[in-house]
């Protein structure tokens, strides 16, 4: 039992350890790097939570990547046309939600293979975004650069200036925590919210039950189909926010294939997190940190060996394989995951 607690605390301890060591070795770039890690974490966290809702309800979703990409495109397009980041966000959510419902239709209503449906969604998004991009803007698949209110601006949290003089806490608050786009805070707030929804509400109880043993929900007189559709829709909304953040927060516009595998890293983080909300936060923070280190030090010289940035970028996957192999406690997916629900006979 004690060991289990330690295993659960492993990711936060690793994250904290990396931060401390970084701050001690190279304090000037550490602050900047951690700041960037938070931004890089945001789309991963949102996508990871999106996957969490879907997979906890028993619908595996490898289409996170495609949904994010579609959302990034629709968000950037609408933001470019209306010059409003908020309308862009809505469009992003709409784009991802549409793909989510296609996934739901294929895998819930028609009981198709969830992996194949997910792959199809990834291909669809990859092709459709470029095609529509060329058709609308004629910029080779890009959208025009977003400026001003077309992007989510960084907001300064209250007292950031006043507190900046206080040692240790001051700079952390003013530089690290303050000064991000609103979507970063939304993503972080989604973590306790998700935990509360899953474990403290009727909706969450049924959602988890549908992913573990849909027959138990069905015999209790609750619709499995409806429950799964709602979960898949929430997944779409969160993917939409993630994609909108990519195109209108992290960058200034859409570039083709801009998600660059983030949907898959989010899936890896989900396994890393063992399908738990707080785990998702720390797993994506860890992966964000690794990406940030790779960005800050293209060739990390540890004295005896030089680590290329490619290795850092590959680390999330390597870590996930280690987790899957069961070295750090077993990651048990929801039992009914991946299987369409069919009543006996």
């Amino acid at each position: 039992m004690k060991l289990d607690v330690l295993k659960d605390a492993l990711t936060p301890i690793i994250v904290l350890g990396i931060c401390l060591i970084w701050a001690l070795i190279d304090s000037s770039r550490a602050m900047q790097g951690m700041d960037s890690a938070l931004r890089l974490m945001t789309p991963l966290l949102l996508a990871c939570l999106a996957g969490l809702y879907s997979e906890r309800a028993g619908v595996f979703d490898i289409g996170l990547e495609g949904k994010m990409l579609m959302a990034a495109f629709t968000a950037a397009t609408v933001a470019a046309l209306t010059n409003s980041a908020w309308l862009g966000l809505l469009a992003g959510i709409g784009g991802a939600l549409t793909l989510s419902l296609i996934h739901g239709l294929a895998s819930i209503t028609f009981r198709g293979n969830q992996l194949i449906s997910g792959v199809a969604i990834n291909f669809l998004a990859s092709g459709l975004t470029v095609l529509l991009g060329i058709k609308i803007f004629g910029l080779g698949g890009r959208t025009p650069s977003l400026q001003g209110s077309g992007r989510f601006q960084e907001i300064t949290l209250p007292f950031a200036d006043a507190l900046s003089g206080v040692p240790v806490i001051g700079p952390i608050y003013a530089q690290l925590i303050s000064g991000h786009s609103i979507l970063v805070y939304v993503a972080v707030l989604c973590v306790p919210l998700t935990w509360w929804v899953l474990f403290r509400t009727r909706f969450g109880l049924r959602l988890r039950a549908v992913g573990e043993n849909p027959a138990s929900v069905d015999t209790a007189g609750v619709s499995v189909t409806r429950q799964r559709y709602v979960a898949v829709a929430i997944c779409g909304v969160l993917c939409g926010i993630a994609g909108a953040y990519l195109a209108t927060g992290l960058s200034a516009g859409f570039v083709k294939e801009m998600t660059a595998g983030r949907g898959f890293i989010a899936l890896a983080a989900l396994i890393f997190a063992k399908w738990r909300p707080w785990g998702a936060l720390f797993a994506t923070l860890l992966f964000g940190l690794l990406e940030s280190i790779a960005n800050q030090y293209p060739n990390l010289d540890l004295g005896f060996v030089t680590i290329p940035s490619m290795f850092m970028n590959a680390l999330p996957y390597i870590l996930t394989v280690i987790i899957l192999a069961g070295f750090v406690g077993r990651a048990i997916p929801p039992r009914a995951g991946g299987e369409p629900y069919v009543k006996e006979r």
Partner: protein
Amino acid sequence: MAAASQNSEGRPDAAAPAAIELRGISKAFGPVQANKNINLRVEKGTIHGIIGENGAGKSTLMSILYGFYKPDSGEIRVGGQPLTITDSQTAIRAGIGMVFQHFKLVQNFTVLENIILGAEDGPLLRPSLAKARGVLRQLAEEYQLNVDPDMTIEELSVGHQQRVEILKALYRQADILILDEPTGVLTPAEADHLFRILEGLRAEGKTIILITHKLREIMEITDNVSVMRRGEMVASVRTAETTPEELAELMVGRKVLLNVEKTPAQPGAAILEVRNLRLVDPDGVERLRGISLDIRAGEILGIAGVSGNGQTQLLELLGGYPEKGSKVSGSVRMNGQELDLTGRYSDAATRRARGIGHVPEDRQVEGLIMDFTAWENVAFGYHHAPEYNKGWLMDNAAIRADAEGKIERFDVRPPNANLAARNFSGGNQQKIVVAREIERNPDLLLIGQPTRGVDIGAIEFIHKRIVELRDAGKAVLLVSVELDEILSLSDRVAVMFDGRIMGERLPSQTTTGELGLLMAGITDTENAADNTGLPPDHKHVATLPGEQP
């Protein structure tokens, strides 16, 4: 069947509305008529048994009652009121609770979470959980249904999991409780405790429907009993006014006696010697409890019994594919050589190589791949045979030619080897499987339910082939729930009950009545005297403590 008012325990008189009344319920799944014009009346405050073999349609009927399936026709009345049950929610609201054979519990949820699932009081869990905790404490006191509400299901024993299912129904204020094969996964002690709980519930005025294929349970606990056979309700009687033998006969049914022409057996040396074979399935239930039997060359040993008494496990174990996770002990010798019961040489391929052919009980699941063609199906299990291969490639032309020969000799219709197995009728599918196994000329043929769902013409044909194999000096182990088939085909009959061989008889020196008694688990020690003409070690007349009704 009207209930009598003079019975004990506050039984309501016949004029009161029945707790449940079914009128003319029918349900078909495609061509399979699962329920045919079912009429049933369950009195309030009684335990009503529904007995029948696997596949008799009991579970389908109860699923209709619980809103899982919609009946094609017929009327359901609950408490005298007609009710259309379209989904489980309707059934729950009408006060019907169901304990499924395979529990519908979420393994990693706590008992409390499972109880409130679907019956929460509001959008937040906290108040529902608190209320359920209180109700649970009350129910535990009332009915001896003690379960730790904070344990997760996976930490509980099977017996306790079942209690959670019962509690779930009671929490939803069920007045009518349906239990589907509740003792299948329980130890005898757990089953006894369950019966005490059920008696307590009846004393509180609840109505209980107990679905089972175990006669002992029916005799022990029910007030009334209805018998189902092949989708039909064949009888409803007061339990006190019937006997296990009568029920066994009703369950198994009597068909027109099939005539199989055969000469007396000329048994040779023992082909298969089974000693003290035991099997504990992954749920921890002992399915085989020390089976010993011999089959000699040139004889057919028939195993009779109500299905679900270990015959399936025996066939699967001998065939080389016991359910994964089963624990096996004992010894099996084939032609004098020990067969591995565990490890890599205990698989079906090795068994086939040692000369054991197997026609499995369920041809559509274990015997054939339904979407593959007849000629492909003919090769399965023997696809490594040299005549089917050319170097390291399969010789499809040779397989096809061989299959066409078999199809012709076994009169499979239509005689088209390219047709998918799915497109043949049940009888012709069975002929394909039988042809594949018999034409390999095995020293021992295991054959389970050879004529289940097979038309009369094919039955005769298959029976003839089995006798021919015997006459060629081979051994046959025949498992069937059709008593007439066993009696007309076998040279010796062993009766299985609850994982044991209750006794062996010669078909010419026994009666269906005597076999029915053995199938019900009743051994009359006087009757079991030496009338089989077999050496003493062939007899396994076990009288179990507590098995006598």
